[in-house]
């Protein structure tokens, strides 16, 4: 058994042979954060008194939702066979929306711990990340976690893992992040199996940025993996993509709080602070070198993250518009993938059309805007980006259904994804039904083990942004998991369905759907709005239309009476308080023409079940 390292190695002076860089690939809930907690305790860098659950998850949202949004890197001292090592654990986000960030984290490591819940087996997102790790030539260390659970099926899933990555089921370590069993062996195994970095210490410095976070006190904190050479404090550094030069104000390692060092050398992982205030000036994937002795070739793999899903974000109180702008500007400092531009809606007033990496990203951003900036917001139903060509060959990029061009349309192309779904074999039929109703085409299907199946489908992104994941979860009783990757654009038979209140088009309710689904969509949205719109003094006809053709109609009957019967001495105070309450309630109504529409109707009307999209997948 390995004792804790008696003394940690000094950063910037550590021989590459004594460095091991690894990440943990795991599905949400498979216990990555708990395992990381145990490692922090075992290696002694966090003592029992300071320990709190999910130590490394910094944002409230991360801890509450149990997901990691931003990655981190922690330097852990460990001793094996009387030799001291520095292990750098690079935490990775576990969600499909953040695949790009995951790929950068993987590129910073030589090895990956594949962590799988011994009661659940591997999930689609983990599988996708595993393939990513294998493509990066990482040494994979298979680990089954939660072996303390009564429902653990350790042998079964060890076999599954062996089938996936080769080797024998016995190679698979059995640990429990909760009780700590097996964690020391895992640390030993990392030292034994993960290759040491092999950078050129004498070459010009090259460091890959794998994460960049905004700290309101320090400015941007950039996490780097040194590939070649070394960086020292007070040196001038250069971003290779932009050639921008910054003063290196601070350099150090995380253990697990920031520790200032003299520098970082090839093979090491640490952080840089330059005083830059905007993460877009220190982008994930970029290569850092020095101004004096710059490298000539940047490290491969830099790509701009592309927004996949768009939604209009509007303040409920129109006077909050400047505050919303300020909040978005601030969030962008820490989230380079967030894009937005001003937008006006006839129904909702002034707001922003925001682009997100995916639905979870959308939810996290709106939640942060509301929580950290105290704003009340309406987010319109998410939409994907369509490429529309009119008969006259003018082309349009449509991120908002209301911008769908009028006139004869030649072709509409929509984004397509390749989806991977893992599930126990019993649910294959239901999954196939689901994918079929979502316009999916099967690519292939294969068995992972005796009873687990991997299905691959080509699906329009628009069909999965809404509630596909929820449907999948409920139809497979929680066992199904999903991952997807972009797969280009394909023409689709798509039309815009408009919604009319009292004969007036309401832009915020427009949506683009497949022609065969237009009727069903129209019926659904009109009947939902009939429930959501309160009765007014006049009848409110609700119609859905494709072009000028009405495809569905409903109406909200006029209210006949709105007056309190009795109003004498004692009723006056009570009635006045009711009036105050109604005034407040009216603030949550948007006037659309003469019709009062509750704010939440804008999301609820377009979601396919009763829950709003913000209450979805955790």
């Amino acid at each position: 058994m390995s004792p804790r390292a008696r003394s940690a190695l000094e950063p910037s002076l550590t021989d590459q042979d004594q460095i091991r860089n690894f990440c943990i690939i795991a599905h949400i809930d498979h216990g990555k954060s708990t395992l990381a907690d145990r490692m922090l305790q075992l290696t002694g860098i966090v003592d029992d008194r300071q320990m709190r659950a999910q130590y490394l998850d910094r944002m409230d949202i991360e801890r509450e939702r149990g997901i990691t949004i931003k990655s981190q890197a922690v330097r852990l001292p460990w001793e094996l066979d009387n030799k001291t090592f520095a292990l750098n654990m690079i935490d990775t986000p576990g969600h499909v929306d953040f695949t790009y960030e995951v790929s950068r984290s993987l590129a910073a490591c030589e090895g990956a711990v594949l962590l799988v819940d011994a009661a659940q087996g591997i999930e689609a997102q983990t599988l996708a990340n595993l393939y990513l790790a294998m493509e990066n030539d990482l040494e994979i260390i298979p680990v089954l976690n939660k072996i303390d659970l009564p429902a653990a099926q350790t042998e079964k899933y060890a076999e599954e893992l062996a089938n996936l990555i080769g080797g024998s089921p016995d190679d698979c370590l059995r640990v429990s992040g909760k009780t700590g069993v097996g964690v020391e062996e895992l640390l030993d195994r990392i030292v034994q199996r993960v290759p040491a970095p092999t950078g050129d210490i004498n070459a010009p410095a090259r460091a890959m940025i794998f994460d960049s976070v905004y700290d309101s006190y320090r400015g941007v904190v950039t996490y780097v993996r040194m590939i070649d050479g070394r960086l020292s404090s007070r040196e001038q550094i250069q971003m290779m993509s932009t050639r921008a030069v910054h003063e290196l104000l601070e350099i150090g390692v995380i253990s697990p709080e920031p520790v200032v060092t003299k520098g970082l050398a090839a093979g090491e992982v640490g952080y840089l602070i330059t005083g830059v205030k905007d993460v877009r000036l220190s982008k994930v994937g970029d290569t850092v070198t020095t101004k004096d002795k710059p490298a000539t070739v940047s490290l491969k793999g830099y790509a701009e993250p592309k927004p996949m899903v768009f939604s209009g974000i509007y303040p409920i109180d129109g006077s909050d518009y400047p505050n919303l702008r300020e909040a978005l500007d601030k969030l962008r400092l820490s989230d380079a993938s967030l894009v937005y531009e001003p937008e006006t809606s006839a129904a909702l007033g002034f707001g922003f059309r925001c682009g997100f990496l995916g639905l979870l990203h959308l939810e996290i951003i709106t939640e942060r805007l509301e929580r950290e900036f105290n704003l009340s917001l309406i987010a319109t139903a998410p939409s994907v980006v369509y490429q529309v060509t009119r008969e006259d060959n003018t082309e349009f990029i449509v991120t908002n259904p209301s911008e769908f061009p009028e006139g004869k349309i030649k072709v509409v192309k929509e984004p397509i994804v390749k989806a991977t779904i893992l599930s126990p074999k019993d649910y294959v039929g239901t999954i196939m039904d689901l994918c079929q109703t979502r316009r999916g085409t099967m690519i292939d299907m294969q068995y992972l083990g005796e009873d687990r199946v991997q299905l691959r489908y080509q699906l329009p992104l628009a069909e999965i942004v809404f509630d596909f994941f929820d449907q999948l979860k409920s139809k497979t009783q929680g066992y199904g998991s999903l991952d997807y990757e972009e797969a280009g654009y394909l023409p689709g038979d798509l039309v815009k369905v408009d919604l009319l209140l009292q004969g007036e088009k309401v832009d915020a309710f427009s949506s683009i759907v497949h022609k065969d689904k237009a009727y069903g969509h129209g019926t659904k949205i009109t009947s939902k709005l009939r429930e959501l719109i309160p009765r007014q003094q006049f009848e409110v006809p609700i119609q859905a239309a494709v072009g000028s053709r009405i495809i569905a109609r409903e109406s909200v009957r006029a209210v006949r009476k709105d007056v309190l019967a009795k109003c004498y001495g004692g009723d006056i105070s009570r009635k006045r308080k009711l009036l105050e309450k109604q005034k407040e309630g009216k603030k949550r109504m948007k006037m659309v023409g003469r019709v009062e529409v509750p704010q939440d109707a804008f999301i609820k009307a377009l979601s396919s079940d009763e829950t709003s999209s913000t209450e979805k997948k955790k």
Partner: protein
Amino acid sequence: MSASLPLGLPWPVSNLIPPRFDESKSFHAYVHIPFCEFRCGYCDFNTYTAKEIGGLSQSSFHESLITEIDASAKILKNSGYPKRSLSTLFFGGGTPSLFTSNQIEQIMSSLRDHYGFLPDIEITLEANPESASPQYLEQLAAIGVNRISLGVQSFDPKVLATLERVHDPDKVGPILKAAAELGLESSLDLIYGAPKESLDSWKTTVEIAASMGTKHVSAYSLIVEPGTKLARQIKVGELPPTDDDLDAEKFEIADEVFQANGLPWYEVANWGKPSKHNHAYWSSADWWGFGPGAHSHLSGNRFWNTKHPLGYQKQLANGSPVAGIEYIDARTNLEERLMLELRTSTGIPQTVLAELGILESTIMPFVLDGSLKIENENLAVTASGRLFVDRIVLQLLTN
């Protein structure tokens, strides 16, 4: 009187309520008598069916009310209010007719001693048909009561059963006749919209009411208050829920029948010769409400007494039974005026709307769609706007 009291500020230690707006307004008194023989299923009023509540008895409760009258006179005088004779006096409940005429008389003398009565004072007492015997009416007339408000609710025995009212509707005619002979004015209280009440049943009720020669009728749509037996019965499905659309139709029926019988509409729920006492509430006049849970309004100060009779009595011993007070600011006062005066046929002076900053452009759409009209410098609801007063007020204040 509603079941729950609002939250307010505590009664000032000084025992003074400063005059703030217009203390030259008319002055009125309401006296709450919190006893009933039986609690009806729909009722959430502050009333008790026991003759004895703790150490308190129905037969001596008038003494507590008189103690409050004494205290009120002292408070008003010390606060600097001018002495004003009463324009109206109203005994409500509960069932005031459970008090003996002697108890009523003692309360009246105390009020007369402290405040004085204007020569044309309107003194109304609420009575249930089962407790208003000809002898009792005679006694009331003798002590100076000049108006009787009868809680009839319906002339349909089936509806009365739903409401759990125990009286015989056939008694109403003779009572009204006796009252008229004694020179007492009368008013009938009706309730529409009880579960299972048909349009025909309601029509019959209003037709009978209109034919009885009374000069005043109040008709309220039934409100199912949470916590009542009726609310439970509807919740468990024993009774069908009330229906607003049907209530609107019943209002129209009542209005048609009453107007045809010489009872003009003058407030959301009232027809006939306007009650001066009601008018005091809607014109923000000054009144003191005596008794448990009673509300008062004096020059922009609204306050209310402790609800439970025992707590009321206990607090009274310490000088004032008030549970809470709120000070209406000038803006709120104007909003209250809009809320109350727009309910009446007279409407509200346009100057008030101007003071509230309500623009012509906000008002005009309602005039154009026929729900409001401008008459004699006042803005008032039309026949079609009457049923939307609350909505119109909200829109005038927020649009």
